[in-house]
């Protein structure tokens, strides 16, 4: 019985407040001794009533009278019941772990802060930060806080569990029962509130309707609460269901979804566009399509588009050929098994496919062949040239009434007459010599061009050009007559006059032309020692011929590094000729060449090979001469517009230069005759070689048959019709389309193309390009 009676402890001894520590020891002492009902007269001591675990599972009742002090009932234990008979100080039920605490009055700040279990019943109102940081441990029932009145500010901050019931009794309807900014950071639990509960953190919590189950729970427990605080009479006034609201924490998912925030799409539609007008900020200024587009686009939205540039560029070989032969076209024909046509085509450009293309030309086309970029052997045009030796004559197109004279039957003159004849004009070829061919026939050694080849091509020329007049006297009078008799005159007189050195004893020397002409007829004996002044390619020809005719010591001297190159130089070196430079000739004597340092190069024959100059004495005053050569404009027209000049008479060059100039002059004259401007079509720009993909070809392959050359030609700028672009296009946007007989075209479907440029990258011939899309 003794244990059930209340033992009274005072927080004061001898009129002095005893320390919290001592009061705590006293309470524990009695609990250990089995007492379970203790009345404490508090004098503000800290933490009265908590931590009564020595009582085990027994019910313990602590009644606090006087001033309860802070944190009454903190760390409260299951089975502990604390009744505070007046108002309570801060943190009632702090970290409550199971105690039931009743306060018969108001409680100040921090009620139930950090509590996890237990129940706190407040018979009045509470201060700030009640029910903050409360949590619910799933092993136990949730903590509960019952408040008859209302709450101070920041109620329920970071509340993570538990149930709070705020009855709002006698609260002014203007004031909120939950105080200022309640429930910030709430993540769990629920709050029943009676009255105005506005202002809670809607980010963290939401109002939900009070279910029947909630209502039953509330009314049942409300009755119990009112009993504990002795206010049963309030039950009817507090039991009006519509007065109550339930506020619950939002779930983590609800917070991330944040459905309450207006979407930007809504804002744009309902606020932005509504204020600014349809189309938004610039809807009045530009009718641009709104709406975003993907990164990879088609049609007009592509930044770049592919273009199939068939025939828009000139192949590098053709561009390099002074005669202008479309070399790649011919290899294309070879590829299509039209070898005959390919060979025959040559005669439309040159009368000497075999002699010049096949043998004498240094082949600028091959030097510029794109294959050189990858150190691959250039396509061998010489094969194609040589095949042209026996091709039948081309057909001429028409007959015109115009008469044209060509003076000089060298390669340039023959080329001009050939082209004019092809175009149907009546052409007369004049020459002072007894044979046609100029230097090709007269000077170039037999070692460089087989006699049969040359003769057969010269024969073909003679067959084709009906009016060839040899052994003509050419002087001013004759020239004026020709000019008068013919509609146009082309001067192709060449450079036949050798340049000689102005040194004493020059009479002892022979010119290179003279030497080569005689040697070709085996009509000269040069002796054992030959000195050649001027170490160019003609000098090399002299050296080779001299060796053939028995010379043993052959020396080529020059004032500068010898200009000789290619086959001529190799041949000269092959016969043991030596090159010396710089050597300056002071005098030529019977015994040899005296140099400026008085060294004597002994020789049986001295040959001067320092170039030729034109012999233009026959021209009249109407033809302007500039530094020994005929002055011409860009059309090869002289100062007399009816007189054209080409070849070495205009300036030194290769045979192919002369042939090309002959063809050019013929084309221009033809255009003038036809009444057109001398300007033809603008020549196509040269293809950029980097557009060619040489990786398709075997670099070790040295094409040495016509067939191999045809298949290994990169076909620069001319579509091979291989279909690689169709195969490579990732969007299947390219299609091959037939256009008439044998014609074809590769077309892009803009609705499929994404402008990646793969067609360009893969094209072996450089036909495809990728250009900025002009469409916007």
């Amino acid at each position, binding site marked *: 019985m003794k244990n059930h009676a209340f033992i009274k402890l005072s927080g004061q001894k001898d009129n002095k407040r005893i320390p919290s520590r001592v009061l705590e020891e006293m309470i524990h002492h009695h609990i250990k001794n089995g007492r379970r009902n203790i009345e404490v007269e508090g004098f503000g001591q800290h933490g009265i009533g908590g931590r009564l675990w020595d009582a085990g599972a027994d019910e313990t009742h602590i009644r606090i009278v006087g001033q309860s002090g802070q944190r009454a009932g903190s760390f409260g234990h299951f089975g502990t019941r604390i009744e505070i008979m007046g108002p309570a100080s801060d943190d009632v039920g702090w970290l409550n772990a199971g105690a039931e605490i009743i306060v018969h009055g108001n409680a100040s700040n921090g009620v139930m802060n950090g509590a996890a279990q237990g129940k706190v019943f407040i018979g009045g109102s509470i201060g700030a930060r009640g029910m903050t940081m409360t949590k619910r441990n799933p092993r136990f029932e949730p903590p509960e806080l019952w408040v008859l009145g209302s709450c101070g500010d920041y109620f329920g901050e970071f509340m993570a569990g538990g149930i709070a019931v705020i009855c709002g009794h006698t609260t002014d309807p203007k004031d909120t029962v939950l105080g200022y900014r309640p429930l910030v950071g709430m993540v769990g639990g629920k709050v029943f509130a009676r009255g105005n509960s506005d202002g809670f953190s809607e980010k963290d919590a939401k109002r939900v309707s009070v279910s029947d189950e909630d209502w039953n729970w509330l009314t049942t427990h409300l009755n119990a609460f009112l009993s504990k605080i002795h206010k049963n009479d309030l039950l009817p006034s507090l039991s009006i269901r519509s007065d109550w609201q339930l506020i619950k924490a939002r779930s983590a998912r609800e917070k991330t979804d944040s459905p309450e925030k207006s979407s*930007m799409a809504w804002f744009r539609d309902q606020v932005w566009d509504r204020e600014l007008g349809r189309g938004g900020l610039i809807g009045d200024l530009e009718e641009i399509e709104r709406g975003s587009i993907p*990164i990879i686009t088609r049609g007009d939205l592509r930044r770049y588009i592919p273009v199939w540039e068939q025939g828009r560029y000139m192949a590098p070989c053709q561009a390099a050929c002074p005669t202008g032969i479309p070399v790649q076209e011919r290899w294309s024909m070879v590829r299509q098994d039209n070898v005959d046509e390919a060979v025959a085509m040559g005669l439309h450009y040159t009368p000497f496919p075999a002699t010049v293309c096949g043998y004498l030309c240094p082949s600028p086309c091959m030097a510029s062949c794109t294959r*050189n970029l990858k150190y691959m052997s250039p396509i061998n045009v010489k094969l194609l040239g040589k095949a042209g030796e026996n091709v039948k004559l081309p057909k001429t197109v028409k007959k015109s009434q115009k008469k044209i004279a060509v003076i000089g039957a060298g390669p340039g003159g023959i080329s001009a007459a050939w082209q004019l004849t092809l175009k149907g004009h009546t052409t007369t070829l004049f020459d002072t010599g007894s044979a046609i061919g100029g230097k090709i026939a007269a000077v170039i050694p037999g070692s460089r061009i087989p006699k049969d080849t040359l003769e057969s091509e010269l024969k073909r020329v003679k067959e084709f050009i009906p009016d060839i007049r040899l052994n003509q006297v050419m002087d001013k009078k004759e020239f004026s007559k020709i000019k008068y008799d013919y509609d146009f005159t082309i001067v192709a007189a060449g450079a036949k006059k050798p340049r000689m050195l102005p040194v004493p004893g020059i009479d002892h020397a022979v010119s290179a032309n003279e030497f080569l002409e005689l040697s070709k007829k085996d009509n000269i004996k040069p002796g054992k020692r030959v000195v050649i002044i001027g170490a160019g390619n003609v000098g090399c020809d002299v050296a080779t011929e001299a060796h053939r005719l028995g010379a043993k010591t052959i020396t080529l001297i020059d004032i500068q590094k010898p200009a000789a190159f290619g086959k001529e130089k190799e041949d000269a070196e092959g016969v043991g000729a030596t090159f010396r430079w710089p050597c300056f000739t002071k005098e030529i004597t019977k015994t040899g060449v005296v140099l400026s340092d008085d060294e004597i190069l002994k020789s049986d024959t001295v040959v001067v090979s320092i170039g030729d100059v034109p012999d233009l004495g026959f021209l009249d005053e109407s033809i302007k001469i500039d530094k020994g050569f005929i002055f011409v404009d860009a059309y090869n027209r002289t100062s007399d517009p009816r007189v054209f000049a080409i070849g070495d008479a205009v300036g030194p060059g290769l045979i192919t230069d002369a042939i090309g100039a002959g063809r050019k002059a013929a084309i221009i004259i033809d255009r003038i005759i036809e009444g057109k401007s001398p300007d033809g079509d603008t020549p196509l720009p040269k293809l950029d070689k980097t557009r060619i993909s040489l990786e*398709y070809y075997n670099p070790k392959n040295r094409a040495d048959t016509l067939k191999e050359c045809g298949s290994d030609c990169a076909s620069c700028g001319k579509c091979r019709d291989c279909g690689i672009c169709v195969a490579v296009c990732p969007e299947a946007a390219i299609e091959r389309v037939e256009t008439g007989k044998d014609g074809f075209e590769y077309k892009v479907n803009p609705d499929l193309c994404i402008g990646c440029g793969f067609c360009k990258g893969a094209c072996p011939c450089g036909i495809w390009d990728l250009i900025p899309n002009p469409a916007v």
Partner: protein
Amino acid sequence: MSSNRSLEPSSLSLNDLPWQIRYNNDRCTLCGQCTAVCPVKAIELKVFQKRIIKTSVQPEKGHTNDYDSFYGIRQKTRVENACIGCAMCTLVCPNDAIAPVKNPGLDRLKFHINQNGIPRRRGGRRNSSDSILDRIKFIRISMLTDPALDAGRHEFEMRTLLGRVLSPRENMKRLKEKGWIPPVREIYPLIIGGMSFGALSPTMWEGLQMGVAYLNEELSMPVRICTGEGGCPPRLLRSRFLKYVILQIASGYFGWDEIIHAIPHMKEDPCAIEIKYGQGAKPGDGGLLMWHKVNKLIAAIRGVPPGVSLPSPPTHQTQYSIEESVAKMILSMSMAWGFRVPVYPKISASSTSLAVLNNLARNDYASGLAIDGEDGGTGAAYAVSMDHMGHPIASCIRDNYLNLTKIGKQNEIPIFAGGGVGKNGNLSANAAALIMLGASGVQIGKYAMQAAAGCVGTEEDRCNVCNLGICPKGITSQDPRLYRRLDPEDVAQRIVDLFVSFDTELKKIVAPLGRSTSLPIGMSDALGIDDYAAAERLSIKYGV
């Protein structure tokens, strides 16, 4: 006569380029998306050759020697096609087979980029990740010494004042005498700085404005945005959204006749007028919007015919001294709106800024001073200006603020700091540091482009082609094929994200300092840095 490729001074190898394409042929599907998207055509499909040699030490078995070709992506090495590192190829690649990688060696492109005698120009940034702001730490944590505040639950007034605040005595006097009181705006301390309609694409510009309007109207954050020098779309001028806008006037005066025409029809006054005298990225240099970028839209907004080049000279043409510039320009601009709108100049950070500040201090009409530091961004500038001209923002702001404290006017003229705020992603820390050094607010540009539109620029010279109109994200392009990649709504949403998260971070910084009722402007006792010289220079604590 050889036509083999010859070596030129500017023949570069892949090794010389600042950005190299790392490409994995095994993973590539040859879909063409990377080459289609590359803004500078730095990559292309190429045919490659492969040699397959099969040999045997037993000669009777024979050897074979075959060539095969295959396709792959190749990087071009021409100067004009040098990869800019934007990584759009990586973005579109379905198989993660391609990516640009920064060359760790010397960038030799630098020596060759001046082809045809034209020095490098670029957009973007200074390309230096150095940042004194990043090194500043907030070392004064109140904890138990002052009431420690909680950024999560305390309410903060993250607001600043834009406008001239009179001294209390003067204010009372004028109130009593019914005198003129300068206009003052209470605004959010993070401002979107001036980026013109023209420098930015229409979608980007609209997105920024829409985001700002949302912040104001849906979230009650008084964020302000400056138009930059390129006028302002007429609809915006006549809308209520104008109050969120700071109109900029600069030496080109583009679009100002349209603004003048709109004044009688304005529903709201603009937030303020910024007079631009200088830009941190290219101090002392002007700008030129090339004729080909002046399309119909830009022309309409700037009030010019399409297809003409638009120069913004380095200086205003009719102003010859600080006194005159300040007096004349500020007075004119104030007058235009009946002295109801704050007017302030923006200058590039400079060792001469104190002269400007002192001048403003004597002029009641001057509402503040914006200073743009060397790390500011730009749409186009000469590289030499960006890389070597300019003044760091931190010390300039500090000098100006300390000067104000010396003359006792630190609460009267707000200073706004810009230029590289958040350049390495630390926006709120940089902003807070500048505020505690003395700025009343900060302006951002590049950060907004990066965060709100995915600008791929970095401080490593990545992309930087804003000046060429080929922005791969559509931020600085006037080509609809590019700018339509950008949805204004998405930009607006990201602007909102940026400001809301900034707001949280700023609170996380200032709450532990115990400040909640006002911004800690000039609260330099909270700052420390691990560099003694910098600490001395900035008059903050040296903390190691």
